[in-house]
């Protein structure tokens, strides 16, 4: 049994960069003696991901690559490794992902089906070539804080604080486009947990409740399943 499954496709310029960022995360996991399976490149496909999750029952799943509102994309970007059809497999687990837009819909679905934590972005994740180090530091910060012993909620707050510092650094260096993109990433970052539920829902009734009562109370009414 392993504690973590890492999934990192690599098939275009952007994913070749995020692939390398993920190497740093793998290093941290190994330093903490967390056993892991690295499903990289051609191994980052749905069948192998499903098999690894079923066989190993890992606590943590790390995904570094593209995604959209419907799921997390597999190698070559044609299909999903995880989408709404198999995200029941994330029940009781923690998911850390860099994927664009996953938090807008499918990430909420995974949380509704029992995922303990879903680290995700509600909009597209962007980065620039002139500030690769800053974007890597931000992208990897949540898992770093978690491995240091913080809760997911604390890690989220620390990641947002780090984004402010990095943004200021980029402004001071005259890298305004990079600062704006980093600000956008930070604004889109979410971590759905029991204490930090999504601020929206596809259910009209739930949406109304969130507006009236706020996310915490609204998601307590009738549980997560709608």
């Amino acid at each position: 049994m392993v504690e973590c499954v890492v999934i990192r496709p690599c098939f275009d310029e952007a994913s070749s960069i995020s692939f390398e960022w993920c190497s740093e995360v793998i290093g941290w996991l190994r330093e903490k003696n967390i056993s892991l399976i690295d499903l990289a490149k051609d191994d980052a496909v749905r069948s192998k991901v499903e098999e690894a999750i079923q066989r190993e029952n890992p606590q943590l799943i790390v995904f570094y690559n593209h995604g959209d509102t419907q799921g997390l994309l597999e190698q070559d970007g044609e299909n999903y490794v995880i989408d709404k059809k198999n995200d029941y497999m994330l029940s009781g687990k923690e998911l850390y992902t860099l994927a664009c837009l996953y938090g807008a819909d499918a990430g909420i679905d995974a949380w509704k089906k029992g995922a303990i934590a879903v680290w995700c972005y509600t909009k597209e994740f962007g980065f620039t070539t002139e500030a690769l180090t800053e974007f890597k530091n931000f992208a990897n910060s949540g898992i770093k804080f978690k491995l240091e012993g913080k809760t997911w909620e604390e890690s989220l707050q620390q990641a947002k604080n780090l984004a402010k510092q990095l943004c200021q650094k980029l402004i001071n260096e005259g890298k305004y486009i990079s600062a704006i993109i980093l600000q956008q990433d930070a604004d889109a970052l979410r971590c759905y947990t029991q204490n930090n539920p999504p601020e929206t829902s596809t259910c009209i009734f739930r949406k109304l409740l969130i507006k009236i009562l706020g996310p915490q109370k609204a998601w307590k009414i009738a549980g997560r399943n709608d």
Partner: protein
Amino acid sequence: MNDVEIMNIIIKAIKLEASLKPNEKIYIGQKSYTYAEFANMLNNHRKLSKDSKQTVKSFLESCIKLFRENQDFREKIFSLAGEG
């Protein structure tokens, strides 16, 4: 200062920054742009695809937020755009 006035100043500054950095690129999702290509998208909304329009909209929203909340950013953008 309203959002449109802020956007015009920021776009002016960003175009200038882009012209100074011809080799730098932005990756957003599965797409990549040179700084110049991206800067040109900012005030050519009508010619853009639905996805690109959304990308530009999100970018400009973050621009305005940063402009309103960060004094350093505001001052440097004014300076770069040759305003004030």
